[in-house]
């Protein structure tokens, strides 16, 4: 035997590998896994109240709870291809809340690749980029979010074990997927419109705002506000004024709508009433501090 070959064969690693290969022949891997996976997952499953906290609380999550959820959903994603997308969606949420944004983005993107019908990863990616003021990217994801077929999203969530855990975590009854999706959709529209306004895409903004208001989503006058805003920057001041008026009828405290309405009146030389509106808008802005309009507050969600 050549000395080199002898040297290689006498290494420990060769013996260990040979033993492992031999064992591999006696191992019934599917049987091993079919027992180990459910057992492991059952022990990794976080207590139900963890999920309800994530749904209900706006901030101040317990880090250990989030980390435990990371573990569980990593395991689900590893072993169950049929609900990998939802598990990755949950992972994205947990990572984002833990401040690990790159991991969150990576998980969401994988979830989208696995199931393009899944609404929440698009929404959450939009939120992440929106919060980083990367409005064109945010707008792209929000646009994709609202393009999702709500029925398909609903079917996906209803069939998912991951989401069933979430639904049952509500102490009083159970969470309603449909309600969550509706809320998410309105929010996605709102943030999309805001992103478009911030990127100056007023034509696109006008179209989106019109679609949303025709869908009957405008319960807070937000869509009319954005229609007005688009009209304003597209220099259609009369139409803008009409839209702002409709918006303010629903929500008289919309400071931005008041401000733009004031601007429109100013341009129409109705100085006195314009000043009154601008002062009121300024007062509301002062009272609110540095915060934006409440409807623009956003956080990542999975439900």
């Amino acid at each position: 035997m050549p000395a080199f070959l002898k040297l290689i064969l006498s290494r420990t690693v060769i013996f260990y590998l040979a033993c492992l290969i031999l064992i591999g022949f006696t191992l019934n891997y599917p049987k091993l896994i079919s027992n180990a996976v459910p057992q492991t997952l059952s022990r990794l499953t976080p207590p139900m109240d963890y999920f309800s906290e994530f749904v209900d609380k706006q901030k101040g999550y317990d880090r250990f709870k989030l980390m435990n959820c990371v573990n569980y959903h990593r395991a689900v994603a590893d072993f169950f291809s049929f609900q990998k997308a939802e598990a990755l969606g949950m992972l994205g949420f947990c990572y984002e809340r833990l401040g690990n944004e790159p991991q969150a983005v990576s998980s969401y993107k994988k979830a989208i690749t696995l199931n393009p019908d899944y609404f929440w990863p698009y929404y959450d990616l939009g939120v992440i980029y929106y919060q980083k003021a990367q409005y064109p990217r945010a707008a792209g994801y929000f646009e994709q979010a609202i393009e999702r077929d709500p029925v398909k999203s609903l079917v996906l969530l209803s069939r998912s074990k991951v989401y069933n855990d979430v639904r049952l975590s509500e102490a009083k009854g159970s969470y309603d997927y449909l309600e969550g999706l509706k809320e998410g959709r309105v929010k996605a529209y709102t943030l999309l419109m805001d992103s478009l306004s911030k990127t100056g895409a007023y034509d696109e903004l006008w179209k989106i705002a019109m679609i949303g208001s025709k869908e009957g989503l405008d319960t807070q006058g937000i869509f009319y506000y954005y229609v007005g805003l688009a009209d304003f920057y597209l220099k259609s001041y009369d139409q803008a004024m009409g839209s702002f008026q409709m918006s303010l009828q629903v929500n008289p405290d919309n400071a931005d709508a008041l401000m733009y309405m004031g601007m429109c009146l100013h341009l129409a030389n109705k100085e006195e009433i314009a000043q009154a509106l601008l002062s009121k808008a300024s007062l509301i802005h002062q009272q609110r501090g540095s915060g934006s309009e409440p409807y623009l507050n956003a956080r990542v969600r999975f439900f």
Partner: protein
Amino acid sequence: MRSQRLIASWIIFSFVLWVFAFRGFLSSRFALISDALSYYDHTKFFIENLGRGVYPLWDPFWFNGSPNDFFLRRIGAFNPFYLVLVLMKCAGIPVTLAYLWFLAGYYWSGMIAFYLLAKRVYHDQMIAYAGYLILLFSALGTRLFDSYMMLVTVPLIWFFYFLTAFSQEPRKHFFLGLVLFSMILAGTYIPIYSLIIISLFLVLFALVYVDLIPEIFGRWAQFFKQNKILVLSSFVVLIFSFLPVLSFFHDSARGQVVMPVRHGDASMGQALTVPHQTLDWGVVEDLMYSFYFSDLRLFKAAVVYVPFWAVILVILGFAGRISRRAILLFLTGIVLFCLIVPHGFPFYDFFYAHVFFLKYFRNLHFFIWFFLIPLFVFFALEQWKLFSDIKPSQTRERNFLLIYILAVHLTVLLFVWWRKDAVASTYIMITLSFVFFSLMALKPIQSQLWKYALLTLMILVQPLQAYYYFSLKALHRISTYEYDFPTSAIQLTNNGFNDPDKIPTGKQSLYYVAGEYNKVYQNTSNYALAKYLQNKFILVDRLVPVSRDAAAAMLERHFISDDDSAVVFKEKASGLKLTGNDPNPPPQALRVRGENGTFRLLSFDANHVRVALNFPYEKFLIFNDTYDPYWHLTINHHPAPVIEVNGAFKGTWVPAGQSVVEFGYGIWWQYAMNILLSFCALIFLAGIIFYASFS
């Protein structure tokens, strides 16, 4: 000598760090959880009784009384090291603290045994010290506070140490050590684990070191010839040390005790058997579960963890030349693994069907904690040894070695980085490890002190961070443990019924309980049972014979009505006096709510109760403590039969006038066997210390 002192200092220093890492638990600020609670309770009960000179074969506080044999076997009552606890208690240290410090000390002793074993095998102090550190800071230590693994792991390590030492140098203290720890293993928890591990190791050792067997046997034979009496008497004691286990097995076969949680709905008759489905959580599941805790910020109890440096050792050793020792260690681990995985490998099912004792234990993942973790650490040390045996003779070879060290560390670093969940100390450890091995290869450090300092820092940096996170999740102790009450007294009145709203409505499956009590518990409502058990002693005037089948249905009514009678089984009622001589018996049973002129509690301990009664008419005294065939009694020093009443309890007719009734548990040979074996274990320990100090 200087080197011995140096290593002793490092061993003590590292233990101080370990104590610091677990200070919350060792000061009892954090609570024991899970199985550790029950072990604390039963050890406390045992120690307190020993301190009073009582060997507790009966536990009157466990579900209204049950044989204590099971708990004595679980904790390994022959273990002479429990005397340390007795001494600490006598010194005035609170039992909880004494117990926690005992756990830490006993665990540390096992780690020292590991060091001594590694030193004997590798003849290298640094490698042995590294093994000691890795094992001390492995997850084994965390299990002191949620489980009882070290009650088997520690004696098993000592056993292997004494086996190795005795095989190398047959001396009296090594032999006695071998016998003592064999005894402890035989009498602790389920000895089947140790038997499997030791048998497998010996078989594989014989296969791998076949040429050494005659030599070793020759040495042993010579020792046996020179110490015939010692060897013979030790073997007799060792064989006898299995008797308590066999006795318990025998009693459980008769249904005296049952273990419904463990036994499940298995159709097998023996109460100790476990159905196959309870084996679903095994080694693979435990490892898979632990894999998801690679982010050490999540580290918690029952997660398998060994300081990650051990993995670097294993990889470094891949380049080493294979040795018989490496083959033995690897095969022992891998064969044991294959044998104990019930799903996926064909071996376990075969043995389960054909080897009777496999039906008596279920926690197959315990093999990880009892043996596979120490074995893995030993294997990692072997890999280090094989790597360190690579001695480059030329600069070129040395450069290759450095490149290999760098490649291994880079690979590990990339892997850790790719996982994206490593704590900062993992990166520090990898860097330090690279520095350490590079320096070892280049040999620029001559100072032993610096070598040990670097080694200690490198191994401990990661586990110390892990245990910091572990402590963050610990539960603060806000209440006393279940047995934190004076076990020297019996309460005549149980206040549990004062608030009936708090009595649970559902029935739970009990873990371990006397067989008859379990039947009563399952067949009567909690309300009725709690109402009945308000008092330890009840006096009635009538016995009502009922068949066993009918008793189950009528006990509920009987317990609630509280009339002046007791139910006896018709099958046992022949020739039994059924009524007293009171011409006007009261409609209700007479409950003893406290001591008075008619009833006095004269003495009480775990195995005995003595009461004095003074009634104008004869009365039937019910002692609401579970019936067991090993109970006996005397009335005014004359033996009288113990009658099983009200489904699971005991009683007797007491004549009119002044009488002293004494209930006692157990037969003389049960006490003799337990006390003698404990005494022998103590003698063996004394022998080890005596002969070791002379050698």
